[in-house]
């Protein structure tokens, strides 16, 4: 995904003079040629993330379209007030593109983990959030974001699905169960383990790479009618903090009987290294863990 981001950004810099890239050393080595070609629009401020976002705000105030990029924990967690004030409060936007999603950087430990990034973005106003599940989904999302001025968060990961599904801005049905089947919503790279986890279960599996704005209308259409006293079940599987989208779904389904299970990364600092696969297992997001949670919920 990072390669797709780099290539698409280089193309945008080449062809759209409104585009500017602001870096804080991370990935700067990938943009050496672009910086030589566009020294006024490829800006590496050094290891200064507050300034990176402040500069993006200033660029946007002059009518440019800034792309900001770093590890999620530095570009979002560390700069939360700059995102809130230097972008949102000024009434301008930027495209924030991060790597190091959740536990992608497991070997580097807690300082490089960022399960709360989407929850933090959710406290801001009007952001579009893209969580692609495959590198081939990245270019179109980034190009579309470059065409407007709104705030966009593009969350790249080393966890990927088998196939790209570029037309999943709205909920896309990947596997259709019976008319009474519970609905499982997989966000971004969670589709791959979800499909393995629900093998043999009567569920409808849907996928999106764009959880904000969340396609509540699409979910309502997929929701089966209540079966007697049993409310239809929704299982939400997100690759970031568990429950991040619960409030959005609860609001969108407030007038519809439903039960919701929200799975994702747990809150605890595990103080452990290992691999992303290890963390997925510890957080119950591997196929076996998902199967256990879904089966217990659906009964």
């Amino acid at each position, binding site marked *: 995904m990072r390669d797709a981001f780099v290539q698409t950004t280089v193309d945008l810099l080449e062809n759209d003079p409104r585009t*500017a890239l602001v870096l804080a050393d991370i990935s700067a080595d990938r943009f050496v040629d672009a910086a030589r070609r566009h020294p006024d*629009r490829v800006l590496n401020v050094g290891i200064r993330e507050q300034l990176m976002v*402040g500069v993006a705000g*200033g*660029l946007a105030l*002059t*009518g440019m379209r800034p792309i900001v990029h770093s590890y999620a924990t530095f570009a979002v967690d560390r700069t939360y007030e*700059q995102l809130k004030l230097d972008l949102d409060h000024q*009434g301008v936007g930027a495209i924030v593109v991060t790597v190091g999603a959740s536990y992608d950087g497991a070997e580097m430990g807690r300082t490089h983990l960022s399960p709360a990034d989407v929850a933090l973005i959710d406290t801001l106003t009007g952001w579009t959030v893209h969580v692609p599940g495959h590198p081939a989904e990245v270019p179109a999302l980034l190009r579309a974001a470059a065409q407007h001025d709104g705030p966009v968060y593009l969350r790249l990961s080393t966890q990927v699905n088998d196939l790209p599904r570029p037309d999943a801005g709205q909920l896309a049905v990947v596997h259709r169960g019976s008319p009474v089947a519970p609905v499982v919503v997989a966000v971004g790279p969670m589709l791959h383990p979800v499909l393995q986890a629900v093998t043999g279960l009567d569920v409808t599996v849907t996928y999106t790479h764009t959880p904000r704005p969340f396609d509540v209308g699409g979910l309502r259409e997929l929701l089966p009618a209540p079966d007697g006293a049993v409310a239809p079940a929704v299982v939400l599987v997100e690759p970031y903090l568990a429950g991040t989208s619960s409030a959005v779904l609860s609001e969108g389904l407030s007038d519809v009987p439903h039960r919701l299970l929200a799975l994702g990364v747990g809150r605890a600092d595990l103080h452990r290294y290992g691999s992303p696969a290890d963390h997925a297992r510890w957080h119950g997001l591997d196929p076996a863990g998902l199967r256990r949670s879904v089966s217990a919920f659906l009964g």
Partner: protein
Amino acid sequence: MTTPTSTPTRPPLGPLLRRLTGDEKHAPSAHSTLDVLWVLYDRVLRVSPDTVDAPDRDRFLLSKGHGPAAYYAVLAAKGFIPEDWLDDLAGPESRLGHHPDRLLVPGVEIGTGSLGHGLGLAVGTALGLRAQGLTGPRVYVLLGDAELDEGANHEAIAYAGATGLDPLTAIVVDNQSASHGWPGGIASRFTVNGWTASTVDGRDHHALEDALTTRHPGRPHVVVAVVAPKEH
């Protein structure tokens, strides 16, 4: 109470300030930023109520958003906002609050209040103008000496100096209100990073104008405007 005599060209801002503050006791000199703001808008900035959206206007960014009464008074005196806006400061329907909001006030370039945001935005503004070939406009940003405590400023100071961002002029109004002071002076924090610096009497209009308009090609410039210590 006497009226300062060193500011003969200042217009009668006192009545405008009293409409904002309801304060009859304090002279305009109680507002540390007043003379700097007046010199900027009267003699330096190439921006007017008719050009608040012009791409090639000079930018003035008030980073020190606290206590913006002097800012509002100058904006009213120069016709950016109606004088009657001054009568309902921070009221439920007021466009003027205790921290300015760029979406509510014509001529206000950035909304501020939380300290340490203006200099980064100013760096980005200068870079954005340069990237669009707009080499005429200058970008001025006003900070307080206590505001310099915020680390975000030092990210911006180091980067602007290292890259020689010469459309940028920072103004630090120094009323010695930083809790732990700045031993060795404020200017040195900038010059060690490659800026040029002028330290002047923050009430002296001629000195302020000279410091704010002198060009230093290839380097950002800081004007430290020293005023009397903050009243407690």
